């Protein structure tokens, strides 16, 4: 018998095994470093389960009498902030999406510029955008709408630019041959092709924006977060519970709604 029959089957090459070992080592080292150096007060840690139970007991039962009118009004304001912010965000994102799509805008400099705008919009969190716009417009829902809109630009712009790049050039060429102007080529050649993607992206972003607009009030940008912040600062825990339930209900309803509409659209 030749020696080849006794060869042992090994799943990974030595290089792969070394790579895996290094990644594992790095992960464990990072975890050990984090746990050993993080500043956690031991008394707080041992106390935590008891304190959490105490907080939840104070919240129970939620006092639904608080819902109308103040919480309801704040909830409607949150809905408006999310919806208006999404509309404004999409309106601002579309020019950048067109600029970033390489098959529509042929200038590499403009492509890069649009990408830069989209990336910077995405890398600043909506709460930070809210802080900035509170400094600009003062506290209130205007700051919230702009924070949501500026945060949405990057997301909508990136996904729409990708959808535009996947559009088939045939209809556009056919329209060019008939002598159609640029806006007409976009409207009748490109738009019908990217429309399904557009509605999907818009609905998805609206769902995310609804969740995010619920917290903008914590930094003063309007909506239900303001009411939540007040209730927490006054230690009105039954009221806090009502607000949390209202947010939860709206978020879950929006998710169901968006899933239904998407299923019908696509």
């Amino acid at each position, binding site marked *: 018998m030749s020696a080849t029959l006794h060869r042992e089957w090994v799943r990974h090459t030595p290089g792969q095994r070394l790579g895996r070992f290094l990644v594992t080592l790095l992960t464990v080292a990072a975890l050990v470093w984090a746990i050993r150096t993080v*500043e956690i007060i031991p008394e707080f840690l041992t106390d935590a389960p008891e304190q*959490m139970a105490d907080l939840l007991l104070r919240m129970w039962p939620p006092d639904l009498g608080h819902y109308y009118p103040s919480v309801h009004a704040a909830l*409607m304001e949150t809905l408006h902030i999310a919806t208006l912010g999404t509309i404004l965000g999409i309106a601002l994102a579309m020019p950048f999406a067109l600029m970033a799509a390489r098959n529509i805008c042929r200038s590499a400099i403009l492509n890069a510029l649009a990408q830069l705008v989209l990336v910077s919009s995405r890398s600043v969190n909506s709460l930070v955008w809210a802080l900035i716009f509170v400094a600009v417009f003062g506290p209130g829902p205007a700051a919230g709408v702009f924070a949501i809109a500026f945060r949405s630009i990057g997301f909508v712009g990136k996904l729409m630019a990708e959808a535009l790049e996947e559009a088939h050039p045939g209809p556009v060429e056919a329209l060019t041959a008939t002598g159609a102007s640029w806006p007409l080529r976009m409207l009748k050649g490109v738009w019908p092709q990217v429309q399904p993607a557009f509605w999907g992206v818009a609905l998805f972003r609206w769902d995310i924006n609804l969740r995010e607009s619920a*917290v903008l009030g*914590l930094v003063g940008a309007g909506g239900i977060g303001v009411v939540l912040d007040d209730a927490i600062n006054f230690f009105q825990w039954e009221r806090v519970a009502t607000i949390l339930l209202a947010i*939860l209900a709206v978020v879950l309803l929006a998710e169901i709604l968006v899933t239904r509409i998407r299923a019908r659209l696509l």
Partner: protein
Amino acid sequence: MRRAFAPNWPARLGLLALAVYSIWATSQLGITGERLATGLGEGGRFLARMWPPDFTRWELLVEGLVESMQIAVISTALGIILSLPLGLMAARNLAPAWLSAPTRGFIAVCRSLHYVIVAILFVKAIGFGALAGVAALTVASLGFVAKLFAEAIEEISMKQVEAVRASGAGPAAVLLYGVLPQVASRFIGFSLYQLDSNLRNSTLVGIVGAGGIGGTLFAAFKRFDYDFVAAILLAIIALIFAAEIVAGRIRAALQ
């Protein structure tokens, strides 16, 4: 005769309705042109005060960033460890309905509450500092990783599970040899994604007092130290970019 490019009346009416809604909602929120015009002037002054970014207090900056990283690493690890059993319990093809239904409900609640709201509750319950941030981001990680893990398990091929079971293996061996090998690579992908997203979020939970660079940022905002704000924002963006590059490398190495 059929017109080419016939006017699409439902779409036009929809657009009109959207425009009417926008105008109505804008008036409901009390946003006026005058206010926006003042805002633009303020915005110019604000940007002018942000420049140049002030890095003189870099010790404070580094301290905050390091704490954010610690929060991200610990909460990701805790979230992953807790997601393993929760994901298995929520998978409808492995767990009985009386177990999977409540577990799915719990995961849905974890996912629905925004991490900043969870962070405030933890700050009020267990006090200021990194511990509240770790707890809040652990809850957020649970909602995300456990849900995706459960979905991944529901998509596995049952043939391998049945084969292992037929050889007389106990439940632990079935999980270890029949289920985990099928989902391990996707699970690592989710975990890596969650680490990335926890790092982004850990730079923010400080705004409500849950530790990390967010607290420094919020304090600088409140004191109108806009040049320090610019420095902090640039540092956060740099950290997130670096993390994205590292995560991409690791993902490539593991495949």
